Structures are given as structure tokens and as C-alpha cells.
């Protein structure tokens, strides 16, 4: 367990020192400023626009950081052979994977928390008083980035190519917002050849539209407490599946 903590802490510090991380974070802050400027055009909906664009920018930055860091997390160490230095110690390979993932995700969460704090400050300037739903929206987005980070890690180990892993992760990200449509098409489809692949894709692709609480918190009636529990369970189970498969793949890698 100590080795897991050490690897996570080490990964966290390593990612925070990366230039790419800081550049992406800076880009996120610029996006927040951009939202403030663009929102002038929205007349009476200015606050709504600052809110929506800020949350969308936060998710975008979280996703870019999660995918970029996760894809390179293990592959870079495998290429440079530095992984051997770690594995030469009595460290279980699964602990190494979990530690690296947790460290990376913590770094992503840190960037998102910074953006959220600034965003919330901006919103407070314009009279926004919905802190509860706001925190829930960020937590849902954080769950989404965890799922995407775990998938990116799995794909990087499966494909052994950062570019291919990034491309597939982004593809899955987009596909993840269409799972309802895939299920709908599968239900309507009379063809066996179309129906089952669609259903398979719908159930294996993460159902990312469910994480977009920021887009439907004003719904009446809104989601209840049980929905959040289901979402937490779904996130934990999906991330665990991807990490277990990553451990399996990593255990078979020659380092």
C-alpha cells in the first residue's frame, strides 16, 4: 500500500512539473476569460453563458489533460526503460498501474479545482448563488474524466502507440455521447447483423451523456439522490474494469 501511495505522489508531482500541463491549464484560464467576453453578446442570459461555457471549458481541459497524461503515463516510461528502476523494487505491477493512474487523475482534479475556483469567483461577481449544484456538476465532470483517463490508459497499453491511443480515446469520447441513439437504433433495427454490434457498442462504450449533469440540473423534476449513487457506482465500476484490464495487459508486457 505504501508503494501505491509513493507512486501516486511521485506521478502527481511529475505531472504538475510538466510544461504541457501548465500550458493546458493556462489555456483553460484563457477559455474562462473568453467566456466572460463572449457572454456580453448573450444579453439577459449572460450569467447562464458564463456558467455553461466555463463548465464546458473545465470539462474540455480536464479531458485533454486526462487523455494526454494517461496515454503517456506508462508508454513513456516503457520506452525510456525507467519503469525498470521502479519495478526493480518490491512493487507489484498492479500497484504501479494504480499508483500512476491515481497520481495522474489527482493532477487533473487539481487543475479542474483551480479552474472551478476561478470560475465560481467570476460567477459570484455576477450574482450566481447555486454552489450546491455547481459542485455536483464538477464532481460529475470529474467522474467523466476519470473514466476517460482509465480508458486512455487501457488503450495506450493495448495499442502501444500514443497517437493511436489518443485517437481511439477521443473517438470513444464522442461515441460515449451517442449511446442512447445507439440503443434506439438497435431497438429499431430489424437486421441481426446491425442490431447486436450496435447493442454491444452501446453497452461497452461509456455512457458519457449521463455525466452531463451541468446540462440538465434545471430539469424539473431533476435527478434524485439515487441517481447520483448509481452514477458513482457506474463510474467506479467502469474505471475499475478499465484498470483491471490495464493491469492484465501490463502484467504481460516485457519490460
Amino acid at each position, binding site marked *: 500500500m505504501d508503494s501505491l501511495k509513493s507512486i501516486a505522489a511521485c506521478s502527481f508531482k511529475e505531472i504538475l512539473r510538466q510544461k504541457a500541463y501548465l500550458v493546458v491549464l493556462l489555456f483553460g484560464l484563457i477559455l474562462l476569460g473568453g467566456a466572460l467576453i*463572449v457572454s456580453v*453578446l*448573450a*444579453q*439577459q*442570459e449572460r450569467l*447562464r*453563458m458564463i456558467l*455553461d*461555457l466555463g*463548465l*464546458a471549458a473545465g*470539462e*474540455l481541459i480536464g479531458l485533454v489533460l486526462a487523455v494526454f497524461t494517461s496515454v503517456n503515463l506508462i508508454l513513456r516510461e516503457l520506452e525510456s526503460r525507467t519503469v525498470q528502476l521502479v519495478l526493480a523494487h518490491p512493487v507489484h*505491477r*498492479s500497484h504501479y498501474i494504480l499508483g500512476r493512474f491515481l497520481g495522474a487523475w489527482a493532477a487533473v482534479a487539481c487543475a479542474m479545482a483551480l479552474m472551478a475556483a476561478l470560475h465560481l469567483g467570476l460567477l459570484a461577481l455576477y450574482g450566481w448563488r447555486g454552489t450546491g449544484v455547481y459542485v455536483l456538476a464538477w464532481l460529475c465532470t470529474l467522474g*467523466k474524466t476519470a473514466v476517460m483517463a482509465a480508458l486512455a490508459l487501457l488503450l495506450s497499453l493495448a495499442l502501444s502507440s500514443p497517437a493511436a491511443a489518443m485517437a481511439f480515446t477521443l473517438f470513444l*469520447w*464522442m461515441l*460515449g*455521447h*451517442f449511446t*442512447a*441513439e445507439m440503443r*434506439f437504433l438497435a431497438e429499431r433495427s430489424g437486421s441481426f447483423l446491425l442490431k447486436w454490434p450496435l447493442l454491444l457498442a452501446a*453497452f461497452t462504450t461509456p*455512457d*458519457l*451523456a*449521463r*455525466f*452531463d449533469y*451541468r*446540462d*440538465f440540473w*434545471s*430539469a*424539473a423534476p*431533476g*435527478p*434524485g439522490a*439515487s*441517481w447520483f449513487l*448509481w*452514477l458513482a*457506482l*457506474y463510474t467506479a*465500476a*467502469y474505471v*475499475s*474494469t478499465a484498470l*483491471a*484490464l490495464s*493491469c*492484465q495487459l501490463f*502484467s*504481460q508486457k516485457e519490460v
Partner: protein
Amino acid sequence: MSRRALAAAALCAGVALYAGAGLRASFTPPFPPLSQLVRGPFQAQDLHLAAMGVRAAAADIAWVQLLQYAGGEPAPTEGPGRRYNMLKDMTLRVVRLDSRFQRAYAFGAAMLAWDTEVQRPDEALDILQEGIRNNPDYGLLRLMVAALAYKKQGDVPRMMGILESSLDDPACPLLMKAILANIHKERGEYAAALAVWENMLASGYDDASYRERAHRQIDDIHRLSASPDMVGPDAIWPATKAVLDKFDAQCRRMSIPDTGHCLVDFMAGAGAKPAALAFTRRLEGAGYLRALECHGRVSVAYVTYPFRANSNEGVLLVNGRPPLVDVSDPDRMKDFWQDARLKAIRSRNPEAEIWASDPGRPKVARRKGGGWRFVFMFPVRTCRACADLARLNAAFDFDARGGVLGIFLDGVSGTASTSSAKP
């Protein structure tokens, strides 16, 4: 390790599937399906943003594009009956991305129903119905449907009353308030128009362009209402039959030079408002204002001349420049006789005249390029009781600032085709 990891993955995948089913069963996000996204030039943009999972932000961008479309000049290809012909689709685009975007429903419907350049209430109703379906808890849309129903019935006061009640709703779009204020202003109800603009300023909304517009309108209304020549609804004398009978008994038998004083004195004694008395004085006591219809800067004043022999009704165009135009003045129409069709009539009937003493209600239309056209139908006869030889349309054109542009012959017909009903 390998088997344990695979077993853990299988177990977690099972839990994920179970949790996914629980998620779907416990709540369905209220997004219209992607197949309902509005087709058009922005479809690719909407689809991309929806694919990125940012539907609310996509709706915000669509909202800004809607505002820009609504605030811009209509495209030259859009005919007079189809101004802002993409307005409904642009509105639906926003609300199909985010069905809870309540202000978009109200904005689009308000502009479609009440903007003088648009006037497509059926399309407004479609938007309102979709809004009510998706937002059953949002009362403003129901109010707007009721106001729209009164508008279709021509019951403007009730329509205004309903719209007025929505002013304090925080979701009421500024456009709705501006439209309401403009309707009040056009009807000559300056106090009410002022109240709406002041409500907009007091709401604390900090959009500089709207605040500037509100200040400009308030100044304009102050100027209009302070003008001594201005005729408003206050100038109407709502005389009942009993009052008129009393007036007959008191004034009819007087000699002509005294009648003017008699009408003014009688009105004052019957409690007429100062504005009504001032109007009658402007007519030198010959008549009083019976009804008023406002169309932009110019209003149609229906006047009763109680001392006239044959026809007691007259129509004046007031509040423009000049401030009072008598549409029955034959001198204004003497050029009409240059028209070949009227010349031919006069060659056959040398005594033919334009019989303009009972003008009736005009057809009113907006002029291309701003302003208003008031078209009166007058018969051409040789005597009051004679048959119509022809009917002509006399068009009185005013620019947007109320300046008279001229009086034109707008057609001659053998038979009447338009209503000459009294208001």
C-alpha cells in the same frame, strides 16, 4: 495475476452494466433526441457540439446567433411577407439543443407574434406550444398563448393586460418589454409606455444598448406627451346617447356662430377631459373626437361634427406633420382628375365630383422603407344621392417620423370592394 485481473475486470464490468441500467431507470436527461436538431446552415455546428457533450453551451452559442439574426437587417431576399423567415427555425434550434432554455421560447415567440416586421402568430404559437410541453412549470409561456389568442381576436386591451402582467417575471425577455412599450406608444398611451421603459431600467439590467434605447424612448415619449398638438386617447369624448340627447336639446337650435361655443361649453359641463376640450377647440367647436386609432406617429381621428347637415362623421389624420390632415378636403385631391380614367368619367359626366365627406375607415399598411399608408375609398358621383360612377382609392403617405409624403391616387374601380364600416 492474469486470471485475478481478468476476473476482477469481468466482475466490475458486470457491476458497471448493472449500474448503467440503474442510471437509465432512475432518470432520463430531458434532451430532445439528436434527430430533432434543426436542419439548416448550423446543423454541423450543433451536431459537433452535441457530440462533444456540451449541449447547454451549444444552446448558448445558438442563442447568441439567434440574437444576432434578430437584431440584424432582414436579408434582401426575404420578401415583405417573410421578413426574418428563419426566425422560427433559429429559435427551435436553441430549444432543441436545450429544451429548458425558457427565455429563447419567449423571445422567439414574442418577435414572431408582435414585431411589426414579422407578424407570424401561428409560428409563434408553435414555439409556445413546444415550450409549454417541455416546461410545464413555466407560466410566462401560457400567458403569451393567452395574449396571442386575444391578439388574433383583435382584443388589444386584453392582450396588453396579459402581457403587462408578465413584466415582473425575471424570465420576461427585454424584447417583450420593448414590444409592449412600443404598442403603448403607438396607441398614444404614453404613461403606460413610460412605465414599461422605466420598469426595464429599474430591473437593473446592465446592457448598455438597451439602457440607451430606453433612455432615448423615455425622452421621446416625454417630448411627444408634452406637445400641445398631440392627440391621445385622453382627447376622446365618450358621449352617451343620453348626453347627446341633452346636447341636441341645448345646442341644435342655436345660430351657427354660437354653436362652437355651445359644444365646448356643453362638453365642459358634461365633464369632458381637458384634452377632449382642447381638441374640440382646435376644430373651432365644430366637432369632437369619437375614436382614435394609432399607427406609429400618425393616428386616425374619427370625429363627429354634430352641426353638419348631411354627414356628421369625419376623419382626420393627426399627430403627424402637419399635425392635422382633413382627408375629406377636396382641394387635396384635385390632381386626381389628371388620371385618364377619371378624365373619361368627367368627360361623360361634367358634374362628377369626388365625394369625400364620409371617408369611413381607412386601410392601413406599412410603407416599404418605413412609415405608413392610409388608403380611403371615395365614390365619384354627380350628387350626394346619385349612383357611384366609380370609386377611387386615395392614399395618404407618411414617413416613419410622421411627415406627410403626399396624397396619391391608388386605383380607380367601378365597384366598391372594401369595407367602409365605422369604428
